[in-house]
């Protein structure tokens, strides 16, 4: 029994190292000189012989071709607006699907189920085409708008609203509330756990989104988000890769999501439950 327990810990610690060590190494290497990184790839402190600790990597983050502050701003704007839009529209649609009766509802729900199964890569070309036709290519609107509409978000909110009792709606109606007031003042606050779960999932998904910005702003580096800017970074450097700068860029991309993650960890439960439903 004891042997098994020790063995269990050995396995767990081994994997914890595999998952944590790369991040630590990235953090340290962001503040090393390039020759130091080259000479001591695994060392967790800066070698004074190669110049010791340095802010060279950080300084490289805002140049003509590397525009991390601008991309950070773009990522923030896109994530905030698209998340708010997604949560708002998905709540309304989810509420209607869960609690209202209207012709065509079954068809709409069927559409959601079909769309859930369609992989994003299949839609690249026509999405580009539609953005072009609508004049949204290389604009903020084109970068944000398609991310607002998400079948899974509607599905998730429908699940949450279905669990609220109908009596609340009837009681609100007796008190003279309009349909909009019933939704916004009574039902929406009660669906708060769902709203928070959806918000966090959306923030994470939209912040990390790569495929959509790639086709939405192909000719506008000033509109790139962090993942898009980072992915094209290596190409702009050619042979000599300034790893301290590149790694500092990955850190800056990771930190905001890490903060959201550690702050709202417990709310992700609903996400786990939702994946079960989705499957």
């Amino acid at each position: 029994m004891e042997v098994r327990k020790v063995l269990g810990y050995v396995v767990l610690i081994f994997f914890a190292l595999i998952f944590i060590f790369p991040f630590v190494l990235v953090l340290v290497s962001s503040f090393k000189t390039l020759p130091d990184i080259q000479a001591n790839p695994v060392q967790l402190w800066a070698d004074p012989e190669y110049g010791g600790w340095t802010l060279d990597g950080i300084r490289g983050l805002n140049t003509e071709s590397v525009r991390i502050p601008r991309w950070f701003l773009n990522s923030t704007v896109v994530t905030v607006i698209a998340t708010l839009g997604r949560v708002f529209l998905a709540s309304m649609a989810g509420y209607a699907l869960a609690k209202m009766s209207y012709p065509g509802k079954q068809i709409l729900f069927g559409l959601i189920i079909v769309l859930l199964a369609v992989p994003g890569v299949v839609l690249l070309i026509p999405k580009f085409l539609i953005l072009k036709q609508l004049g949204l290519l290389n604009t903020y609107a084109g970068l944000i708008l398609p991310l607002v509409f998400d079948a899974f978000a509607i599905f998730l909110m429908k699940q949450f609203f279905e669990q609220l009792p109908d009596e609340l709606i009837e009681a609100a109606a007796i008190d003279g509330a309009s349909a909009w007031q019933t939704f916004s003042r009574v039902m929406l606050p009660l669906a708060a756990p769902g709203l928070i779960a959806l918000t966090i999932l959306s923030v994470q998904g939209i912040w990390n989104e790569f495929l959509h910005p790639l086709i939405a702003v192909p000719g506008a580096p000033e509109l790139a988000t962090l993942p898009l800017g980072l992915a094209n970074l290596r190409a702009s450097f050619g042979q000599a890769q300034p790893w301290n700068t590149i790694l500092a860029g990955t850190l800056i991309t990771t930190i905001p999501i890490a903060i959201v993650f550690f702050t709202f960890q417990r709310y992700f439960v609903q996400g786990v439950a939702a994946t079960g439903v989705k499957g």
Partner: protein
Amino acid sequence: MTTGSGGRVDDPAPAVPVAEAPPIVSEAAPAAAGPFKVRRGTPLKGASGLGWLFSAPAFTGLLVFVAIPIVLTAWVSLRDWSGLVSPFATEYVGFENYNELLFEDGVRRTDLAISIRNNFYYVLFVVPMQTAIAFVLAVILNNKFLKGKGFFRTSYYFPSITSSIAVTLIFLFLFQTSGAINAILPGESINWFDNANGLFHNALGVIGIEDPPVWMIENGFMGVTYWQWIAGPSVAMFAIILLVTWTSIGTFMLIFLAGLQSIPESVEEAAKVDGASTFQTFWHVTIPLMKPTIFFVVTIGLIATWQVFDQIYATNFGGPQKTTLTPAFLTYFQSFTNSEAALGAAIAMLLLLVIMFSTFLQRRFIKSTGER
């Protein structure tokens, strides 16, 4: 979740560590949202106009940016369209694009065949590896006498919420010639992401088989020689396999953990009382009870791995020597770099078929084992 963006499933399942995560094994597990009884009904009478008013904004967007694009993909795949002009001004060519991709000798068919070969090996390695490791970690973590559960769960899950591009850059850094991996591993330093040698090819070299039989080089299928088909993933692809496995283990571990926690303790205790050893209990009780979760994880794993894109783009654009080319990347490359958008659309449709087929097979399998 997408494994990757949206349903693109590098981040297939949005999930996070919480000990008291509800069971997700049952298909209908509802998300808990308060102390109310579940009620399904449509109580708002006379609200049919309102229903449309509430649903219209979201569904209009879905129609424009998701539903219509699916139809458009199918439509342009039947036309002679480069992507540079309006597709409405192009000619209908029937299944010519598909014919070129599947039956005509040439670079297009060869590229598609190579991309399928590469992605097949990628799936073959990633899905079993991520499923097995995630399952083992979940089983160990499910031990109630264990200390530091929260720490381990969080550290395993953290890579899953990190940007796929950021993780790819980190791996490029770790696996470069003068990088940490080469410094830690014994033997000569190699440039992982630049190495096109097949793993099986290398393994055969180790046991002395350097030259493949002539017939395997001179003959082939879809423009790719038999030797290339069986050479295995390239070293570069293997590095991508490791990186994706590393990223996705945490998500699947959480799903397994939720499944394990839904098994009542009494079931396993009863087995022990009946004289079963720990291993027997695990093999004959825990695993059968976990079957639905395992199939769920394998399914979303399959769906996600056939769409691998971000990591391909951020490493070598399909190189070295096309050994990391995948159908998803080929769709993008043909359409946006090669100006053969109709061909790209045809590849996208074929990819959709493969993914739908994987899903279908898995669903069938789940059903038949569920009935047993």
